[in-house]
């Protein structure tokens, strides 16, 4: 096993999967010669040719719409959206077609496409390079969503997404593209969708998060050491959601703090809280607390830290639960 950065693990997954399956195509803005603005697709065009990894015109609805047609012609497209907020022009295709076409054919046709994109804030970027759009995707019937937090999971979840018969959106935490580093299994490596990862075992409170919020939750757990034993649950897959892991952890600790950087209202943390309310309410010793971004546009980067969930806010929420 070699150590890889998160973005290198993504690149590795694409190489391995394209090698394995000649029906996989990679398309998107600047993914070819440049290898993507984050270099996630670097080397693919050289290795597999311009027919299998190609630059598209600057049109996200066109990218996703043609991917639907490519599926119908028997290909397995992996499309890159250059940034979170720039995927929005494709939402019409996503909601009205990607998520419905299989159903529309009464299951006769499959749409095994993958949409991957960097997401999230904290990168000191100009406006609209910071969004956490998972809710839009997870709210769309017919579409699955995965969000890795580690290099190994970035590789394994992307491989699972590519192999999955359904459309899968994979959001990659750009904040950790080049800071998260870890041993990543060589060759084929698949992390099944729908399996959470216990990032840290604990007994007093469960910090539930995904993607870029996992390192933050771990730092909060560190900060609470001696005071409380925190369990950190990395959901990894938002849909399908590993309810067993969620319920097992919360029934053990009796306390849950859900962390997400997206705005709060109707965000994924609300879904987690609802599942806990429906299925674990008698195991809970207090309310389910959310630490989230706020219901405002993502701010100017000089004050973005005030918007993003912080260790202090997570610790504060955990302490409020422990004191109750």
């Amino acid at each position, binding site marked *: 096993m070699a150590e890889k950065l998160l973005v290198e693990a993504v690149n590795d997954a694409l190489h391995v999967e394209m090698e394995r399956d000649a029906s996989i195509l990679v398309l998107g*803005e*600047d993914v*070819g*010669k*440049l*290898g993507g*603005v984050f270099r996630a697709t670097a080397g693919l065009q050289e290795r597999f040719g311009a027919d299998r990894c190609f*630059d598209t*015109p*600057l*049109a*996200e*609805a*066109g990218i996703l719409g043609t991917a639907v047609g490519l599926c119908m012609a028997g290909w397995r497209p992996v499309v890159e959206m250059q940034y979170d*907020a*720039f995927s*929005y*022009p494709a939402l019409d295709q996503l909601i009205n077609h990607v998520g419905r076409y299989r159903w529309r054919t009464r299951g006769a046709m499959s749409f095994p496409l993958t949409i991957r994109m960097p997401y999230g804030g904290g990168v*000191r*970027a*100009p*406006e*609209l*390079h910071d969004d956490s759009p998972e809710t839009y995707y997870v709210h769309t019937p017919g579409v699955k969503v995965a969000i890795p937090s580690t290099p190994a999971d970035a590789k394994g979840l992307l491989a699972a997404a590519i192999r999955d018969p359904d459309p899968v959106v994979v959001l990659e935490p750009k904040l950790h593209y080049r800071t998260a580093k870890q041993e990543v299994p060589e060759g084929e490596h698949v992390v099944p969708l729908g399996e959470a990862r216990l990032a840290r075992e604990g007994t007093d409170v469960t910090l539930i998060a995904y993607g870029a919020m996992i390192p933050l939750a771990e730092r909060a757990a560190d900060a609470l050491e001696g005071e409380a034993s925190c369990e950190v649950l990395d959901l990894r897959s938002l849909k399908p959601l590993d309810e067993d892991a969620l319920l097992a952890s919360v029934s053990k600790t009796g306390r849950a703090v859900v962390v997400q950087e997206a705005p709060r209202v109707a965000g994924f943390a609300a879904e987690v809280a609802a599942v806990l309310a429906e299925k674990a309410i008698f195991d809970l010793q207090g309310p389910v607390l959310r630490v989230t971004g*706020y*219901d*405002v*546009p993502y*701010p*100017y*980067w*000089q*004050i*973005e830290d*005030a*918007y993003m969930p*912080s260790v*202090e*806010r997570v610790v*504060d929420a955990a302490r409020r639960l422990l004191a109750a």
Partner: protein
Amino acid sequence: MSQVLPAEGGLRRVIGDGESLPDGEVEGLGDAELLALYRDLVLLRTYDERSVVYHRQGRIGTYAIFWNHEAMQAGAAFALEERDWIFPSYRESAIGLVRGMPASTVLSWWRGHPAGWWNPEDSNVASICVPIGTHVPHAVGFAWGSKLKGEDRVAIAFFGDGATSEGAFHEGATFAGVTKAPAILFCNNNQWAISTPLAEQTAAPTLADKAIGYGMPGLRVDGCDVLAVYEATRDAVERARAGEGPTFIEAVTYRSAPHATADDPSIYIDPERVEEARESECVGRYERYLVRAGVLTEETIESVKNEALELMRAGIAEAEAEPPADPGLVFEHAYADPPATLADDLAELRRILGG
């Protein structure tokens, strides 16, 4: 002007090369106007070059360089009246400078400081648009709305060659044609969208050819020739004011700097072609033209450049002197009448930050 469809073939040009290509001139521009236009060009060039330095020094964040795009911005803006509105993309971030917007404001935008988020009504320059092409319908709506009110105001949207692939561009252009909005769709064709060359962006012979599909004239102009840009835009403004509707202008240049400070073009661009473009860059071309015409002296050149440098020095000092933004600003301005939860959120955040 009676422009007929389809698009003009060659590029409009006014400035010669001082040798085989003769210089032309633009009717109605006297020495004072020619010099004012030169000042605008130098101002934008200086803003851009200083910004790249400030970025290297860590004084501004990621920055979209517009070197060799100045003639398009200054030339087009010069054809407008103050009451006309400009809808810029990130590439025209500093275009407000030619309307007296303080350099510190634009620098603050690139510094991620709230002082950079200006009021569009101050200089009739809309907010910087980051998502490609999505402001084209805004400009069209503004122009249409002004027309409905009987106001004589033109709107111009600046966008790139890549933007002409986006749905929002097509929809905006379609609306402009149908409503006969007094709008100008100004395409900065620098022949690259980050690493994607024009040939991979469109199969159309020229971008101006697209105009026919929206029922408007398409002009093609040398984007490094500030006078040609001015003249073409003036024609479009005249059409708009005469109630003849929108015009598409394709101004052709060559992106001879990285897409933005974070970009490494060595992976995809031909350095010789860049060198060629740099040699015929737009500010020097206009400067030599004015010297040939006897309008500009070495002395004036120096004083104009010094003036621009001084403005930038003051601008960055002012931007850096802005007090740190209060975290409470996170919760402001999104709503006129905010949900009560925002005040609770702020109170909680202050408690945690304070403790």
